């Protein structure tokens, strides 16, 4: 008997899994709950194309789901899991043989006074991006709180369209936890040369407003940065509350093994909500990227179909800022040795990370797709050495 698969969350991970199951010949029912009203879509354009690009890029066209017999329940939120009886509760109870949690992550709140006024947005959903597009016209001034990848992408797209942009970052550099010091420095100057103000090592104390609209961001040292729009981009937190309430093993994210199984063998979890093993890395980590979501969807599809597990992946993701197409592979750990190829000023370069033994552990590239693919191949071979 082909099991009845229930997927909670209609994002990249959930949708990819549903499609892969049908590709692999799964015959049982597939039911996918998604609490957003839009059909599943690509999130990367939200921070890259919100000014004038094509925002709405659907993962699959609407008729796809009917044709593939994927029962998508849009706008329906799952409120609890009953593991003993193997069912979830939404507008009505829904039994499962296999449950897959693909609930993603939500933007981390900024715990300062004044954030609930008009003009303050965070960016996770298509709705958020539509709101931002409405707010951000060329004559506006935006403050972006948080210099992570999403913050920098929003900054670049806004700046390229004539918006006055200030980035406020709490750490001493942008991308402090996710990129090498070298890349942080190169990107910071790239943004500054294009007219963006970047303030690092600065805490936001509060936001001020007038008539319910944000007017300024006030820093700890008292500096007030006047603005019309604030984008809060201070990271994302996994939406693991259903799993926590159901007693599944969680540790800021649902803990899964290498086939994306949770502590209950009938329940899998995939995508941004998980804390997972990553090839070549000790312990478990959270990866928030499309390739990671796809990889885990492959793992679960193989497990459900009884097919061979996918080959170990090389984690990677991309980011577009101005005319820089950045691609990063491997896991960036602070304090590695970094060798640079190419001139940052030319907008085309690669940063190769090595451990103490000289093995390549990661690569950060801009407009250098060949270097990226070569390094990724090297990382996959597992015998990555600097002399190659």
């Amino acid at each position: 008997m082909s099991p009845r698969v229930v997927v909670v969350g209609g994002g990249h991970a959930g949708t990819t899994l549903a499609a892969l199951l049908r590709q692999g010949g799964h015959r049982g029912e597939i039911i996918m709950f998604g609490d957003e009203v839009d059909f599943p879509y690509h999130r990367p354009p939200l921070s890259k194309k919100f000014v004038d690009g094509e925002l709405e890029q659907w993962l699959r066209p609407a008729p796809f789901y009917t044709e593939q017999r994927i029962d998508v329940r849009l706008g329906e939120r799952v409120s609890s899991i009953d593991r003993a009886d193997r069912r979830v509760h939404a507008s009505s109870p829904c039994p499962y043989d296999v449950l897959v949690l693909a609930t993603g992550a939500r933007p981390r709140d900024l715990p300062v006074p004044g954030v609930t006024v008009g003009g303050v947005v965070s960016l996770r959903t298509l709705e958020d991006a539509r709101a931002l597009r409405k707010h951000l016209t060329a004559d506006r001034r935006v403050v972006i709180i948080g210099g992570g990848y999403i913050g920098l992408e929003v900054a670049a797209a806004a700046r390229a369209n004539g918006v006055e942009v200030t980035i406020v970052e709490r750490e001493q550099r942008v991308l402090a936890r996710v990129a090498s010091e070298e890349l942080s420095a190169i990107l910071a100057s790239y943004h500054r040369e294009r007219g963006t103000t970047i303030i690092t090592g600065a805490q936001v104390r509060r936001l001020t407003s007038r008539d319910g609209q944000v007017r300024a961001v006030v820093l700890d040292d008292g500096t007030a940065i006047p603005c019309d729009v604030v984008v809060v981009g201070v990271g994302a937190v996994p939406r693991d509350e259903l799993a926590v309430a159901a007693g599944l093993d969680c540790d800021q994210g649902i803990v899964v093994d290498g086939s994306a199984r949770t502590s209950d063998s009938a329940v899998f979890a995939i995508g941004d909500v998980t804390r997972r093993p990553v090839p070549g890395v000790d312990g478990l980590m959270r990866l928030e990227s499309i390739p990671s979501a796809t990889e885990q969807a492959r793992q679960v599809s193989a497990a459900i179909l009884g097919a061979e597990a996918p080959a170990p992946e090389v984690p990677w993701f991309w980011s577009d800022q101005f005319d820089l197409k950045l691609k990063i592979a491997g896991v960036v750990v602070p304090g590695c040795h970094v060798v640079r190829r190419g001139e940052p000023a030319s907008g085309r370069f690669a940063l190769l990370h090595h451990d103490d033994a000289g093995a390549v552990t990661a690569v950060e590239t801009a407009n250098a797709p060949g270097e990226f693919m070569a390094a990724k191949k090297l990382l996959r071979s597992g015998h990555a050495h600097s002399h190659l």
Partner: protein
Amino acid sequence: MPTVTYELPDGSVHEVDVPCGQSVMDGSVRNNLAGIVAECGGSCSCATCHVYVDAGLFDEVSDEERELLEFAEGVRPESRLSCQLIVGEGCGGVRVRVPDTNGL
């Protein structure tokens, strides 16, 4: 609508009508064919939409696409990224072969 023939990693063959202006990748994703992953949705970023196709019917390879393919698994002279293959009137009957290496 031009018909594109996809030969998949498992040897199965699928004929799909792809509207002009859409890509060979779109036609595959739309019909849930195995092998083309297309993580980036067609922005020439991910290289998970690799196919083999005879040259000539489609636009020239851009530098970016060429570089992505250079070190792709299973690369051959007839390798292309299917999101960059925009189907036009003259593409009817074209046949693409999908390797099993996308997503590696």
